[in-house]
C-alpha cells in the first residue's frame, strides 16, 4: 500500500514539475486544432459559459429566466472538480441544502434537509425513479455512483404541483446521455488514499447504428478512517437509447449498487441515555427504466416512463453494554449487552412507477399534462423480537402546468391532484412569476401548496416497535418564496431568496424513546429564512463562490417533539483555473445545526477540502489528468452527535484518463 502511495506521489510531483508542457503542445497544434474546434468552443468566443446554456426546470426544459422555482443546478463538471465520491459530498456545497451525516466516514450515508425541512420531506429521484424509502420516507443517495451523473437539479421548497409528495424540495439526479459516435468515448479513473480508501470507475459511451449506449462500472472501498469503520460498494449502470423512427426514441436503463457500511463502534452518554453499540448497514438497490419519447405533431410531444425499483436496507446494531434510558421516573434498561439494538431491521421494498406526459408547445404557451401512478410494497422485518409486516400502497396523480411567456414576464400556473388507495388525497396548486427587470436582473416569486404523504412505516407500524395508525393525514404546507438574481456588476453574480413555509399536520412520535412508539399528526411548523449566493467571474484566473442560508424553525411546542431553533449554513469556495492544464480549489462548509447540548455536538467551524487537478497529457482525442484531494484540511471537528465523530485530515490522489 505504501508503495502505491509513493508511486502516486511521484506521479503527482512529476506532473506538477512539468510546467508548460501543455502550453507548448497547444501552441504547436494551434493551426491544426482550429479546424477541429466545436460549435460550443466557437460560441465561447462571443459569450461566457454561464450565458450559453439553457437550464432544465420542472419536468420540461425551459430557459432559466422562465423558471420561477428557487432552483440550483450542479453539473458533472462541478462534480469532477470536487473529486467527489458521493452525492452527499456534492450537495454539501449547495446553499440551502443541509446534509446531515450519519456516520462521517468514507462511504457513510447522510440524510438530506432543504430549508430546514424534515428528511422525509425531500423527494430524491434518479432518472425519474423515486429513491425515497417507502418505510421512513427519507432517501439515502449513497448507492448512486457520482460518475454517472450529468447534472443534479435542486428545487428548494415544495414542488408538489409538478412532482407530488415533496414538501421540502426536490433533488432530481439526471444521468449521462448515451453516445452518438461509432468510435466509443469514455473515461477511466483511479483514486487511492488513506486507510486503503479506493475509488475506481470506468465509463464508455458510443453508438452502434441506431442504438446509443452508456456503460459504467465502479468500485469504492475503505478500511474506515475512524472508529473501526469499513465500506465497500460495487456498482454498475447501463443506458441504451434506440431511435425507432424519425419521431420516436426508446430508452432503457438498468443500475445496481450494494454499499456495505460498517459504522464501527458508537457511544453516547448523556442525561437521557447511556449506550454503546456496534452497527452495520447494507443497502441494495436495483432499478430499471423503460421510456418512450415521441413527437405526435411538431408542437406536441409525449413521454412515457416506466420503472421498477427494488431497494433493500438492512441495519444491524449490537449493544456492547446495557442500554439505559434515564426517564424522569427513574432509569429504565431498554436492552442488555449482547442484545440486538431495537433499531435493527431489514426493510425490503419494491416500487413500480409509470407516468405519461404530454408537452404542447404553441405560441406563448408550453403546457404539460401528465399522469403518474405507482405501486409500492414494503416487507419490514424486525430483529427484536422477530416480526414482519407487509403493507403496500397504490398511488395515482394527474397534473397540468403552463409556462406563459409574455415578453419580460413569464407566468407559470400549475395544479396536481394526488390520491392513494388508503383514501388520502391532496390538491397542490401553484403559481410562479418571473420578470426580467433589466438586462441583468431577474425577479422571481412563487406561491405553492405542497404535501408529504405519510411513510408506510408510520402508517402501518412494524408490529412491535411502532403501532399502526392508518388515520395519519398528509402533512401539508403553504409556501411563499421571492427572490432576485442579478449580475450586479460584470464580475459578480448574486442571488437572494426569502422563503416562508407554513406547514400543518406535522407527523410526530407520541412516546419518544419508549416502545412501542406511535406516529400521529401534530400541529403547525413554521419555517422562514433567507438564502444568499454570490459568485465572481475569474479575475487573474481566480474566482470565488459563496453562499449563506438561514432558517428559523418554529414548531407547535404543544405537540411537537422538536424545538424552536435556528439553522444556518455557509459555503465558500475559491478556485484557480488557468483553463489550460491546472485547477486548484479550496472549498469549505459550515452548518450550525442548533442541536441540543445533550447530543455533544461540535460543528462550530468550517470544514475545508482542497482539490488540485493537473492535465499531464493531451492529444486531440485523449487527455490524462492527475488529482489530489486533501479532506478536512485543518482537522476540524464536525458532528451533531458525539457518537459519530468525523475523521481529521486525510488525503487521496488519483489519475483520470479520457479517450
Amino acid at each position: 500500500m505504501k508503495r502505491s502511495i509513493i508511486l502516486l506521489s511521484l506521479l503527482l510531483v512529476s506532473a506538477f514539475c512539468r510546467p508548460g508542457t501543455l502550453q507548448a503542445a497547444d501552441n504547436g497544434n494551434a493551426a491544426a486544432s482550429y479546424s477541429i474546434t466545436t460549435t460550443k468552443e466557437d460560441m465561447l468566443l462571443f459569450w461566457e459559459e454561464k450565458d450559453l446554456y439553457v437550464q432544465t426546470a420542472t419536468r420540461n426544459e425551459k430557459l432559466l429566466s422562465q423558471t420561477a422555482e428557487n432552483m440550483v443546478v450542479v453539473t458533472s463538471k462541478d462534480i469532477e472538480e470536487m473529486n467527489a465520491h458521493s452525492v452527499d459530498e456534492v450537495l454539501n456545497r449547495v446553499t440551502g441544502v443541509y446534509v446531515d451525516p450519519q456516520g462521517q466516514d468514507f462511504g457513510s450515508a447522510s440524510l438530506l434537509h432543504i430549508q430546514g425541512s424534515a428528511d422525509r420531506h425531500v423527494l430524491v429521484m434518479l432518472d425519474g425513479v423515486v429513491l425515497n424509502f417507502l418505510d421512513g420516507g427519507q432517501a439515502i443517495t449513497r448507492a448512486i455512483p457520482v460518475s454517472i451523473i450529468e447534472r443534479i437539479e435542486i428545487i428548494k421548497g415544495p414542488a408538489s404541483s409538478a412532482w407530488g409528495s415533496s414538501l421540502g424540495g426536490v433533488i432530481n439526479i439526471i444521468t449521462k446521455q448515451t453516445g452518438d459516435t461509432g468510435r466509443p468515448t469514455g473515461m477511466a479513473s483511479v483514486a487511492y488514499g488513506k486507510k486503503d480508501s479506493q475509488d475506481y470507475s470506468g465509463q464508455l459511451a458510443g453508438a452502434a447504428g441506431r442504438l446509443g449506449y452508456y456503460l459504467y462500472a465502479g468500485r469504492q472501498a475503505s478500511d474506515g478512517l475512524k472508529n473501526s469503520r469499513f465500506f465497500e460498494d460495487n456498482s454498475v449502470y447501463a443506458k441504451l437509447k434506440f431511435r425507432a423512427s424519425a419521431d420516436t426514441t426508446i430508452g432503457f436503463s438498468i443500475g445496481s449498487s450494494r454499499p456495505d457500511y460498517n459504522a464501527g463502534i458508537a457511544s453516547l452518554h448523556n442525561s437521557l441515555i447511556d449506550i454503546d453499540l456496534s452497527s452495520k448497514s447494507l443497502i441494495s438497490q436495483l432499478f430499471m427504466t423503460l421510456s418512450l419519447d415521441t413527437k405526435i405533431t411538431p408542437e406536441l410531444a409525449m413521454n412515457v416512463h416506466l420503472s421498477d425499483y427494488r431497494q433493500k436496507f438492512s441495519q444491524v446494531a449490537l449493544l456492547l453494554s446495557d442500554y439505559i434510558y434515564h426517564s424522569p421516573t427513574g432509569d429504565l434498561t431498554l436492552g442488555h449487552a449482547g442484545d440486538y439494538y431495537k433499531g435493527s431491521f431489514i426493510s425490503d421494498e419494491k416500487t413500480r412507477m409509470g407516468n405519461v406526459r404530454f408537452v404542447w408547445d404553441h405560441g406563448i404557451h408550453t403546457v404539460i399534462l401528465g399522469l403518474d401512478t405507482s405501486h409500492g410494497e414494503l416487507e419490514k422485518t424486525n430483529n427484536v423480537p422477530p416480526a414482519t409486516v407487509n403493507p403496500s400502497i397504490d398511488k395515482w396523480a394527474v397534473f397540468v402546468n403552463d409556462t406563459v411567456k409574455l415578453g419580460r414576464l413569464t407566468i407559470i400556473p400549475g395544479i396536481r391532484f394526488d390520491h392513494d388507495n388508503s383514501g388520502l388525497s391532496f390538491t397542490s396548486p401553484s403559481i410562479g412569476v418571473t420578470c426580467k427587470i433589466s438586462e441583468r436582473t431577474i425577479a422571481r416569486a412563487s406561491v405553492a401548496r405542497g404535501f408529504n404523504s405519510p411513510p408506510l412505516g408510520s402508517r402501518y407500524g412494524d408490529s412491535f416497535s411502532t403501532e399502526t395508525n392508518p388515520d395519519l393525514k398528509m402533512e401539508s404546507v403553504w409556501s411563499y418564496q421571492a427572490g432576485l438574481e442579478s449580475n450586479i456588476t460584470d464580475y459578480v453574480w448574486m442571488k437572494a431568496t426569502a422563503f416562508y413555509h407554513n406547514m400543518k399536520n406535522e407527523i410526530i412520535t407520541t412516546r419518544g424513546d419508549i416502545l412501542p412508539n406511535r406516529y400521529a399528526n401534530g400541529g403547525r411548523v413554521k419555517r422562514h429564512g433567507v438564502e444568499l449566493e454570490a459568485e465572481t467571474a475569474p479575475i487573474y484566473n481566480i474566482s470565488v463562490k459563496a453562499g449563506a442560508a438561514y432558517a428559523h424553525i418554529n414548531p407547535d411546542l404543544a405537540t411537537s417533539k422538536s424545538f424552536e431553533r435556528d439553522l444556518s449554513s455557509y459555503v465558500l469556495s475559491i478556485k484557480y483555473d488557468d483553463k489550460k492544464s491546472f485547477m486548484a480549489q479550496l472549498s469549505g462548509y459550515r452548518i450550525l445545526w442548533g442541536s441540543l447540548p445533550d447530543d455533544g455536538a461540535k460543528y462550530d467551524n468550517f470544514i475545508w477540502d482542497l482539490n488540485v487537478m493537473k492535465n499531464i497529457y493531451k492529444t486531440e482525442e485523449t487527455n490524462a489528468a492527475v488529482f489530489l484531494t486533501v479532506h478536512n484540511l485543518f482537522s476540524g471537528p464536525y458532528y451533531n452527535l458525539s457518537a459519530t465523530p468525523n475523521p481529521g485530515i486525510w488525503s487521496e490522489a488519483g489519475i483520470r484518463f479520457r479517450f
Partner: protein
Amino acid sequence: MRKIWTLLLTAILALFICAPPCKAADVIIIGDAQLKPVVNVVSGIKESLQATVRVYPLAEIKGRLSAVIAAEGAQAVVALGKEAIEEALHLPPAVPLIYGLVIIPPKISRANTTGIYMAAPVGEYSSLTRKYIPSIKRLSVISSSDLIRTLAVPSASIATYPVSSSYEVVTTMKKQVDSSDALLLLPNASLLTAAAMEDIYLYSFRKKIPLLGVSERQVRDGALFSLVFDPISMGRQIGERTMEALKDRDAGQIPPAPSKKFDLFINTDTARNMGIDIPNEMLKQAKRVYPQ
C-alpha cells in the same frame, strides 16, 4: 391498480391510433437546443420563415438525416453549428442547405448551399472608426489566413498579418503593431488563448494602442469596443434565405454573408486612458458601456 395501468396503456394506444399523422415540416433545423444562441437563432428563423419547421438535436438525427427528410417531406435544411453542417453535407445537392452559427463560411464545395456567419467583417470596424474615431487611421489585423481572407478587404488603412499560433499572435503584435492606431483580433478560439489575451491587453495598455475585440467580455477586460452579432437577427436572415430556397431558388446562387446586425460594446475607461474621445452619438449606439 391493474385498472389504472390498463386505462393508461389503452389511452396511449388510442392516442397513437386516433392522433392525426405527424404533420410534415417544410424545413428541418439541426442544432443543440441546450445552447441559448441556438434557441435565439431558431426564434429568429421562425419569425421570418413562412413555413412549418421542426428542430432536431444533432444526436437524434445523426446518420439518418436523409431518412428524416424523406419522412417529413422537408424541402430545406438549416444546420446550426459545425457539427450540424458536417452532418448535413451528406445530403444530396437537391436539398437546399442553409447554415448558421459558424465563424466564417466553411470550405465546402456542395451546391445549393449558403449561410450566415458570426464574425464581423473588418469593414464594420473600420467604418465605425472612420465615422466616430477619426484618430484611428490605420488598423492592424492579426489572425489566421482564412479569417483574414474572408473578413478583411485589403486597403491602405488596413494592414493584415496572418499567423498560425497564439505564440505568433503575440510576437507579430510586438513586431508590427507599433505603427498602427488600433489592433483588431478576429474570432479564432485557437489563437485567442487566455495566455495570449493577457499579453495582448498588457501590450495594448502599455503602448496605448487600442484593442478592438469580438466579445462583450473583451470590452469588459479592456478592449476599446467590440462588435458582436445578434443571434435573433441572424435567425431572421437565415429564415429569409430559406424562404428563397423554398421558392425554388438555388441556394448556391446566394453568397454566404455575415450577420446584418451587430451589438456594440464600448469601454470608456480604456478610451480615457488612451486619450481617445468617444462621441455621444457612438455611445448612444452601444448596447452596453463599460464601466457600468
